[in-house]
């Protein structure tokens, strides 16, 4: 029994490392074949519509609600210390540093990532990728790379929109609803949020998340077994793996970026 369990674990580990290797090779192949995605930018723009524009609604609405909740909860906590004016700082810093990039990335993974995997997986299952290859068109350059770059470009824009929307939500609840002084709300926020340390680092985070999610989603689709359950399994794996990857990467990046501060 125990022997079987250990064997099983070993087998899974070896398989996992194999897949990581394949994914890494796939990632470099995509980078190498990215010429087309930029030379014919129309292809990338088309994919930005599907990944970016179609994710807008969910990102904006979620951002607004997250910001409103932050405003309410933050006010409750800060009020006990008599420093309600710091609400702006709390809302802005938590959104710009963490919640903006991370929650937007999680939403992006489940909204756009799963769609990308399903699309590529189905294209593979219906031999569209094979057909393209036989027509002397490299599917990595023509299909995969534009989707990759569309994801990498869209992610920071979506994260910024999420943060901006969230701050607006915090402002609505904090200033308009509860009645925190508007001037100190914005002024305290401005004096505490640093462009380089907070906003730029948040943008860098979201770019890294964009790379991770796009790579995972495209790889899972490209690697999916050409059957119905193969594609559905790959779609689920995309959401699970990329969500975990986002959270793990966030920890690593945060440890590097904000070490030595505070």
């Amino acid at each position, binding site marked *: 029994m125990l022997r079987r369990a250990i064997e099983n674990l070993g087998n899974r580990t070896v398989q996992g490392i194999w897949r990581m290797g394949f994914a890494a090779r796939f990632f470099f192949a995509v980078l190498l074949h990215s010429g087309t995605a930029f030379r014919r930018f129309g292809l990338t723009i088309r994919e930005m519509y599907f990944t970016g524009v179609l994710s807008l609604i969910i990102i904006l609405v979620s951002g607004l609600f997250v910001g409103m909740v932050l405003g309410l909860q933050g006010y409750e906590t800060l009020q006990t210390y008599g420093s309600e004016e710091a609400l702006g700082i709390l809302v802005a810093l938590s959104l710009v540093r963490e919640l903006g990039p991370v929650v937007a990335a999680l939403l992006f993974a489940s909204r756009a990532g799963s769609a990308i995997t399903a699309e590529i997986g189905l294209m593979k299952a219906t031999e*569209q990728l094979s057909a393209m290859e036989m027509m002397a068109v490299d599917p990595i350059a023509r299909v995969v790379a534009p989707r990759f770059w569309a994801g990498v470009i869209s992610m920071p824009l979506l994260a910024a929109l999420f943060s901006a929307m969230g701050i607006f939500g915090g402002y609505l609840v904090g200033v308009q609803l509860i009645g925190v002084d508007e001037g100190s709300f914005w002024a305290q926020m401005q004096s505490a949020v640093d462009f380089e340390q907070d906003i730029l680092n948040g943008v860098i985070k979201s770019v890294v998340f964009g790379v991770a999610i796009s790579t995972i989603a495209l790889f899972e689709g490209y690697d999916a077994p050409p059957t119905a359950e193969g594609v559905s399994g790959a779609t689920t794996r995309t959401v699970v793996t990329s969500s975990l990857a986002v959270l793990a990467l966030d920890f690593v990046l945060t440890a590097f970026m904000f070490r030595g501060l505070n």
Partner: protein
Amino acid sequence: MQTDNLVEIRDVAFGYSARQILKGINLVARRGQVVAIMGSSGCGKTTLLRLIGGQIRPGQGTVRVAGQSVGELNQADLYRLRRKMGMLFQFGALFTDISVFDNVAFQLREHTDLPEEAIRDLVLMKLNAVGLRGAARLMPAELSGGMARRVALARAIALDPMLVMYDEPFAGLDPISLGVTGNLIRRLTDTLGLTSLLVTHDVQESLKIVDYVYFVSEGVIVAEGTAAEIRASTLPYVHQFIHGEADGPVPFHYPAPAYAEDLQLGGRRA
């Protein structure tokens, strides 16, 4: 050196570690001919097409197309060669996110710098050749199986290739579409001066249109000849195949232990 043989396959073997699929195939397709490769399902016919298209490389032997050894080409040369090949996939493999017109125009837009009007003329010409000029604005999802197959054929001949490969062009078609597709293959081969390579198990339909037939079974060629020769063949395998008999050299049963033994009629061991 220009030979009459467009496709030449010599002693080709291919297999995955567990299973040998092809074991020494010799096959020739002359320019201007329609050649069929027949055999039961899963005998490695599709693998053969993939070898010719360079999607996989042979374990041993050579695959030559127009004098070039496909297995030894680098990616750039392979892609150059593929522009002269068309392939019709089993279910068409049309790009589902773009219209019929754009499907046929795909290669023209990818590989040529033709102005949009010229592309339009060429695409309508190819669609007209398969009788679907009127369907140019439809999406692939709106087509029937037979129509999709014809659009895929128009797409395969878009760049006027020298070789067109068909993977099971007759599978899952109604009798009318079947006849239409068969005639189309023959007519396009003759009028455009192509060479056609068919992989199929539809004997009756393909024997009407082909010049030469190869029978593949268990990774080797078991019979070959012109359509008339095959019809007259007395080889038991060919006979079984053409007449669709259930049992013969190709057994009805998958290899299994004796039935009685499997049912444990010899008394159960306690």
